[in-house]
């Protein structure tokens, strides 16, 4: 009897504690659930009109629009769309700091720019969904801004993108799992476990980390470029431009690395020339943010990635990064109009 009473007390305390923790965590990390995208132009969309808050990486908040994208309001027929990954989605900054919002502000109604960035959608997946992204509007947008954090392409992945077979992320938007995801405590706890919370308590099982140094002095001529992959990808993108009578602009933002001597270097950009030349050959505009980020660092002492909740120059794009990209895109679009 005593044991039953003790267990009941513990259970009740657990339920009450979960409620209290959930209320507290609402200001720390509030993540809506994924639902399958009815327009099939992304793997998923966020629950329409749901609020989100993040303090885990960056500090931000906002409300998804009725289409489940990170915009202040739905645009039925935007003339410019931005597609890409979580960087574009901009859930690590406030909604009014992301690049699409800033562009809308800069153009003062002259253009309508619609953000269709979704977390987990890398360059290949974004390209796979390009036709569907354009199909979903009655009037095809004149310009598509495609974000990429990579310039090294592999043939297998390009073929998967063209054939529409890039790995699909499932949404669990029904039943018990959907319900459990709506409890902030369980959601955060689950993501902590995914991030390795239990590994902290199993140090004996941790493999020794072997850091393989990146060989210094590797020049682009020494880098193995899969030319066929580039050709395939840009032919595909050029065909979309032609078919939909639109223009594609790809903007690439490399990851920066702070060096011990106070200088800055960039990762993942060894293949940038191959990428740029193939884009140019196929009439696709390409923006490499490397030099802008360099100027930003040396002149303004700012970096485009990283937040005050973690490391500087690490992780997702911060408000300065969004602002820098918005500035560059604004200039490029303005010049394109002039031409």
């Amino acid at each position, binding site marked *: 009897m005593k044991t039953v009473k003790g267990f009941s007390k513990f259970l009740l305390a657990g339920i009450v504690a979960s409620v209290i*923790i959930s209320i507290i*965590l609402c200001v720390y990390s509030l993540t809506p659930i994924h639902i399958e995208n009815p327009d099939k132009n992304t793997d998923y969309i966020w629950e329409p009109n749901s609020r989100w808050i993040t303090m885990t990486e960056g500090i931000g908040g906002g409300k998804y629009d009725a289409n489940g994208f990170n915009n202040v309001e739905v645009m039925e027929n935007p003339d410019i769309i931005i597609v890409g990954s979580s960087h574009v989605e901009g859930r690590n900054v406030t909604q009014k700091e992301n690049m699409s919002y800033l562009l809308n502000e800069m153009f003062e109604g002259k253009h309508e720019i619609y953000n269709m960035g979704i977390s987990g959608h890398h360059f290949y997946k974004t390209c796979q969904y390009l036709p569907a992204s354009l199909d979903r509007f009655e009037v095809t947008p004149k310009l598509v801004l495609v974000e990429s954090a990579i310039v090294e392409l592999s043939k297998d992945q390009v073929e998967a993108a063209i054939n529409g077979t890039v790995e699909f992320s499932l949404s669990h938007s029904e039943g018990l799992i959907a319900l459990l995801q709506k409890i902030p405590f369980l959601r955060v706890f689950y993501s902590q476990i995914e991030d390795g919370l239990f590994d902290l308590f199993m140090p*004996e099982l941790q493999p020794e980390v072997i850091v393989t140094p990146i060989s210094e002095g590797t020049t682009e001529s020494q880098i193995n470029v899969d030319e066929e992959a580039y050709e395939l990808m840009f032919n595909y993108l050029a065909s979309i431009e032609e078919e939909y009578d639109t223009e594609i602009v790809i903007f690439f933002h490399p990851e920066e690395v702070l*060096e*011990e001597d*106070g200088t*800055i270097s960039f990762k993942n950009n060894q293949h940038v020339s191959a990428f740029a030349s193939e884009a140019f050959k196929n009439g696709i505009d390409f923006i490499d943010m490397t030099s802008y980020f360099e100027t930003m660092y040396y002149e303004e*002492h700012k970096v485009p990635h*990283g937040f005050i909740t973690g490391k*500087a120059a690490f992780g997702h794009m911060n408000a300065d990064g969004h602002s820098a990209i918005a500035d560059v895109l604004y200039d490029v679009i303005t010049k394109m109009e002039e031409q």
Partner: protein
Amino acid sequence: MQMISFVLIGFVILIFCLLCVSKKLISDIEKNIAVSNWILLIASYVFVIYADYRFAIVLGLITISSWFFAKYEKYSYVGVIIALASLGYFKYTNFFIDTFAHIFNLEYERLSIILPIGISYYSFSAISYVVDVKRGRINSRDLKSVALYLAFFPKITSGPIQKSKEFFEQMDTDRKVDLNSLFTGVQIFMFGLAKKIVLADRLAIFVEQVFTTPMAFGSLTVFLAGVAYFFQIYFDFSGYSDMAVGVAKVLGFDLPKNFNLPYMAHNITEFWKRWHMSLSAWLQDYVYIFFGGNRKGEVRTYVNLFLTMLFGGLWHGAAWNYIIWGVLNGFGLSVHKLWMKYTKSNEKEQNLLVSIISIVLSDLFFIFTLMVFRAESLSKAWVILTRMVSFEAGLEHVYFWLIVTVVIFAIACVAAYIKSKDNVIVGKFKNVSRMEGFYPIMDLTKLPGLILFLVFCGLTLCLAYTGGSPFIYGKY
């Protein structure tokens, strides 16, 4: 078996159950104490062997030598020498070879010596036992008692360095191992765990980045990283100590408090009475007093202070930055002693403003010394210190978790102040803080206490930094 691991948690639960069963089955108190001590001794050696069986051999040899030589007053110094020599061999051999080869420009190969788990702590405990027997503070004990004193697993890896008298007193009594001790111990353990995995580990991210690439950051950020390290080392080490105290409590032992709000100290002397208290007390008892303390004139007092702190610095590791860190603290203590002498400020009541200034200055001094302590080399320490005061422009990164830490720390200080407000000051040192730290222990048999504790546990797990980082004092 590390302090944060499921294996350790399972191990402690097993030992707790065994102690409870022994208490239930053996009605004779004397016999039960003996059986409990055997259980703890075997568990402690299992703990050490789990890390490496060779560590148990070293521990066993030091235990036997301390037990043996303590019995013979005439030869007790041999026990001290063996403990010191073991520590010296395992911890400092390569340092001396490096230094010697560097001075004489010789080519050499470093010896592959592994540092036995907890040797820095149990060798000091061994010295404390031998010296206390020699000084007549305690009677010599049987081998089993000495072995448990040195090997007791909650404190073996990072202390606290408990005085032998206190430990033996508890060993000989009928300790409480019940649901109450379990609840209290678990709460103290969780308190320490939260300090470590939520605060210290999150601060470590910022500190690591800024200290690795100080040239990329502006002066303000480098200074803030210094402040972050100041909090990181406190939450890391005091978190570990709390966890050790918690585990020991579950097993019926009370380990001494190792920290008592050190960052609220008004001066460096008071700081060292509040920071790593078990090591400070050990150094005072067995080094400072051994050198003559303040009984051999003014100059000798200052020299003794320097030597004691130099020894304390060297204890942290075989590197020049630790030695210089020790010397800086010795210097700070001497300057404070001189200040007290000429201003007679220890006889005056301080007002609030003077108190705040004193606390801030003491903390700034410690932050400054920590830059030397933390840096990988003296040249790196110099780069960081110059960057900090050069007002150079660079990235400015006001780390969110530093702000959170400061807020939590301030709330904890206010709570401690309210709780210790009515404490009576004993003696003439009116400028010494009255504040005492405490563990917020709740009654887990009552629903509100249980809910609060579960909320605390849930938030700890949800806010923990999952990347992890080793305990700073684990390597000493």
